């Protein structure tokens, strides 16, 4: 305990010195074992891991506090964070007790809802809605309590090189060069530092999704969230929407997540489609919110916060080299995002990559080794982990779905809605007539048994 509080006090002192940097311009060179660029989930996981292994890492954040610049949809998966630290004081909103997947055509909805009883029992499948402004700040505090130093409102503008290797960072503070044997680039998907230092190329826009989100409250109705989403206690939902009713002609989806007393509503879709189909994020969000199946859930809501971000969705194929002489790349900066429609993950993979990077650096430091070869086990361990395995497992899917997008997101949802209308039609014809009409409507769209079989074959790997 004593040791920890001393370190925390030391950290505070340095923090204050950093705050007065404009006046004093302190020299931090060689004060720290490693520098982490960005106090998001990947950066703080790396800092926490290193601090727990006895290193003194410096965590540099450009926002006013960790999380100030960060946006995500809303659900955080916590298996690795749980291993790294005690989650009792973590700022969770609600656990996910229901996942719902919904196809929206112009005015139809066809949905599947999943409510396994197990999700209501702790640890709730490690799935919680959080606000990044709260959670990232809390997670960075865990790193600081373990011995890391956090400096906020400081922007890393470049890397410092010497003899070909990376030996530190340049910041926007006066005399803002800071040197350390290891640099962790955890700057997010808008990776200006990594790109500026030629460690990665600008991602092609076909591999980027743009997202717009609102946090909504219900000022006139305290029970709106519990009633409309049928919630008891801390339970919450994640609703996922696909099809033209969710994101128009674009490839992507919409979502609603329940927080404690707000909901997060948003759309995320191909940036290339936003450009070529002239579909603005704001207008796409408005249309989604106005869909007949969505609007009743959001009636009389008031906007608490509007936010936007880009998501790197290139997957395994567009991952940059993760190791350089003196530096590693983690999290969104490394393109570690999985979106296959059913699984939407990124923050958990950020934490995982930060952990492996931190652990690798700690081992290298113990052995007194620097340079790229000393850090090579980071990408190797990441490749053997679920992170890269999952990215590779679904690498084929995005391309396939892209080819079938009209069928999957427009024709089929309409056909299913029409078939439901036929199948359940209440008139004086026998059920056999209705069933035949329903079947015919689906088969028209799929191209008969042959088409249906081909479609199933194209996606057989999904259930492998």
């Amino acid at each position, binding site marked *: 305990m004593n040791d920890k509080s001393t370190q925390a006090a030391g950290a505070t002192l340095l923090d204050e010195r950093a705050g007065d940097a404009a006046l004093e311009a302190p020299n931090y060179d060689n004060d720290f074992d490693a520098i982490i660029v960005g106090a998001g989930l990947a950066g703080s996981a790396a800092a926490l891991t290193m601090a727990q292994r006895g290193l003194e890492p410096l965590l540099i954040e450009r926002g006013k506090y960790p999380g100030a610049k960060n946006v995500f949809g809303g659900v955080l998966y916590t298996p690795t964070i749980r291993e790294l630290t005690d989650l009792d004081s973590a700022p969770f909103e609600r656990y996910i007790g229901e996942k719902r997947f919904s196809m929206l055509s112009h005015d139809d909805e066809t949905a599947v809802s999943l409510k396994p009883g197990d999700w209501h029992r702790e640890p709730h499948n490690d799935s919680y809605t959080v606000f990044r402004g709260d959670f990232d700040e809390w997670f960075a505090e865990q790193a600081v309590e373990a011995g890391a130093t956090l400096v906020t409102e400081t*922007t890393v503008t470049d890397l410092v090189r010497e003899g070909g290797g990376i030996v530190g960072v340049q910041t926007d503070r006066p005399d803002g060069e800071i040197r350390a044997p290891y640099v962790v680039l955890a700057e997010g998907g808008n990776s200006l530092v990594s790109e500026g230092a030629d460690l990665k190329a600008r991602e092609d826009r076909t591999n980027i999704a743009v997202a717009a989100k609102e946090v909504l409250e219900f000022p006139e109705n305290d029970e709106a969230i519990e009633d409309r989403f049928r919630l008891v206690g801390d339970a919450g939902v994640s609703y996922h929407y696909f099809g033209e009713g969710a994101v128009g002609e674009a490839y992507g989806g919409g979502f609603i997540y329940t927080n404690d007393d707000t909901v997060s509503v948003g759309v995320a879709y191909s940036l290339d489609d936003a450009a070529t189909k002239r579909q603005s994020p704001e207008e796409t969000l408005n249309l989604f919110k106005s869909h007949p199946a969505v609007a009743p859930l959001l009636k009389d809501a008031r906007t608490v916060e509007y936010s936007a971000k880009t998501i790197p969705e290139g997957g395994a194929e567009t991952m940059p080299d993760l190791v350089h002489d003196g530096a590693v790349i983690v999290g969104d900066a490394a393109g570690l995002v999985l979106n296959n429609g059913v699984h939407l993950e990124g923050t958990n993979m950020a934490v995982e990559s930060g952990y492996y990077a931190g652990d690798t650096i700690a081992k290298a430091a113990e052995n007194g080794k620097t340079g790229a070869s000393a850090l090579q086990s980071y990408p190797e361990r990441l490749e053997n982990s679920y992170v890269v395995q999952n990215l590779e497992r679904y690498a084929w899917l995005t391309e396939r779905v892209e080819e079938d997008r009209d069928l999957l997101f427009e024709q089929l949802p309409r056909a299913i809605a029409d078939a439901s209308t036929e199948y359940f039609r209440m008139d004086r014809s026998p059920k056999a007539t209705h069933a035949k009409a329903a079947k015919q409507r689906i088969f028209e769209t799929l191209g008969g048994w042959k088409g249906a079989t081909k479609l199933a074959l194209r996606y057989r790997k999904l259930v492998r």
Partner: protein
Amino acid sequence: MSATPQVPTMQNDSMEDRLYTVSYDDPGESHLDVKVPDICTDSCETSDCMAVCPADVWRREDTDDLPTIAYENCLECSSCRFACPYDNVSWEYPTTGSGVTYKRG
């Protein structure tokens, strides 16, 4: 019976009101720019920066014009930087904690 399903009308905030929901510190100068003005005025016919921006930062009346940049609207999503087919958006992180601050995010 009405012919269409009854849908409550969504009262969406204007862009101005939406942008009021996040706090913002003006760094004093724009963190956004175009790299080569001639590319905008001579080559670009599509104004993709404008089409993809979730915050009406980029505006352009005519494809012969340089876009104007309302950088104080910026939500720092970087979609303009990725969208520009000419890689002509200059994007820097706002310095010393300035720019947008999300409370929730």
